[in-house]
């Protein structure tokens, strides 16, 4: 696994305790953090929601799978799925190789105020440091 100092944690997104990120302004894209992709290992399958599906904060909206495990995607916000990244359905490896870029998961229709409950990069780093101890 990567050391905390090796993780790529950009400061232009907001983070969630469940290791997802959402962009800070519209279009609101969601993906998983470098920590999450490293911990899950090489992905073999991404189960995406339907466009138009409702997202409820704290509820599962899809799954990420490695050869051995199934991990839920938990929504950090309330909103609606505006678009899904079909490229990762064909090539889940993009989530591992470029988690903040080509490996984005969904685009969300939501109020900007939904971001207020999320963490900035400093708070997310602190969370990772604390959970590492």
């Amino acid at each position: 696994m990567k050391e905390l100092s090796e993780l790529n944690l950009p400061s232009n997104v907001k983070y969630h305790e469940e290791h997802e990120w959402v962009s800070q302004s519209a279009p609101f894209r969601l993906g998983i953090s470098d920590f999450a992709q490293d911990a899950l290992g090489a992905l073999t399958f991404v189960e995406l929601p339907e466009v138009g599906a409702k997202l409820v904060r704290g509820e599962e909206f899809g799954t990420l799978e490695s050869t051995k495990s199934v991990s839920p995607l938990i929504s950090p916000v309330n909103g609606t799925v505006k678009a899904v990244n079909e490229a990762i359905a064909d090539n889940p490896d993009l989530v591992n190789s470029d988690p903040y870029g080509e490996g984005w998961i969904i685009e969300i229709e939501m109020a900007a105020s939904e971001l207020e409950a999320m963490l900035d990069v400093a708070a997310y780093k602190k969370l990772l440091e604390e959970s590492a101890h």
Partner: protein
Amino acid sequence: MRTILYDVHCSLGGTMVDFGGYDMPLWYPSGAVKEHLAVLGGAGLFDTSHMAVLLVEGAGVRKFLNYAVTKEISDLKVGRAGYGLILDERGFAVDDTIVYPLGEERFGLVVNAGMSGKVIEHLKKVPGGSGFTYVDLADKIAKLDLQGPKSYEIMRGLVAGPEKVFEKLPYFTFKGDFDLAKSAVKLTDGTPILLSRTGYTGELGFEIFLPLDKARELWLKIVDAGARFGLIPCGLAARDSLRAGAVLPLSHQDIGHWHFVNTPWPWALPLSPEGKFTKDFHGRAELEKVKDSADHTLPFVGFDPRKVDEKEAKVMLADQPVGTILTVVADMAIGRIDGKVVGLASPDKPEGWTPKGLVCGFVKVSKNLAPGTPIALKDSRRQLKAEIVSDIRPGRTARRPLK
């Protein structure tokens, strides 16, 4: 506990997990999918030093082990290896093992991580087992598994006198001795090894037993020699997906504290073509009693790589629960074309085709289901279609002639 290669795994950036009491690499930064594919397309290198080697010696040891192990070994020659089960008197699996006859009164047993003590304790209590010398070689021997179709080309360059060593070395044979000082097989630098044409991936390859203090050097040499064949170090996750696709059981998961009968591994039992036991062995009486009523362990393959949670999932047959899941993994080297399971090594795969992966593994169900029977795997999240099969990943290379 740590194997002698622990520092190597850490320096390679391996994600370490506990397995059988050992800190072992689950995968390296290349990831479990690339590691799985490397073994199928070229070669992969596994540290398997967590596994245990036992020596059992004494007059009459062959006769005793032929009773204590399910495999017929009364005529197993020195140089041939046999896979069998060590059962208790109930017919439950204590562990599985590969038996290596080293001489008429000297046998090696390779068992699973952390199992040497338990197996020795068990064998001493099996009728007739108390009078032998049992030696646990865990602190003397390391093991590296070199697996994949290019293994032979890589290993050839590392062994002294390869023409002689690889002559007449088919699947499930070995050369050398676990008493490494006596071993006639040597690496080019003179290091004595036992070279076994076995493995846990279904692919052509070797298990290399060698002195602990030489393991690091051989690891580095294999990585170096294998680079041009696409060899990469591989962790436990790739080992698990490779063995499942090869229809090989994981001890304490696919075999364990239940009757070892009605399994996809009938060759581990001494069976006549009519299905009768051909020798006496520990646990036989119980297996005969329960054979018609015991559960059936069967391989399955699904239709995409999605999985269920094996801890809670049920196996459904026409909407009725009929059993549980023992192993569920995604083999990323297989897919379906017109419904048929095709693998990267299938001779009939279309040009440029890339498999999407299929879920596969083993179920334990209350009735015998013929290959082709549709089942569903159901957990609280989803219900997946799958079918019972007789085999999983096509085109395996384990038995391919060395050339």
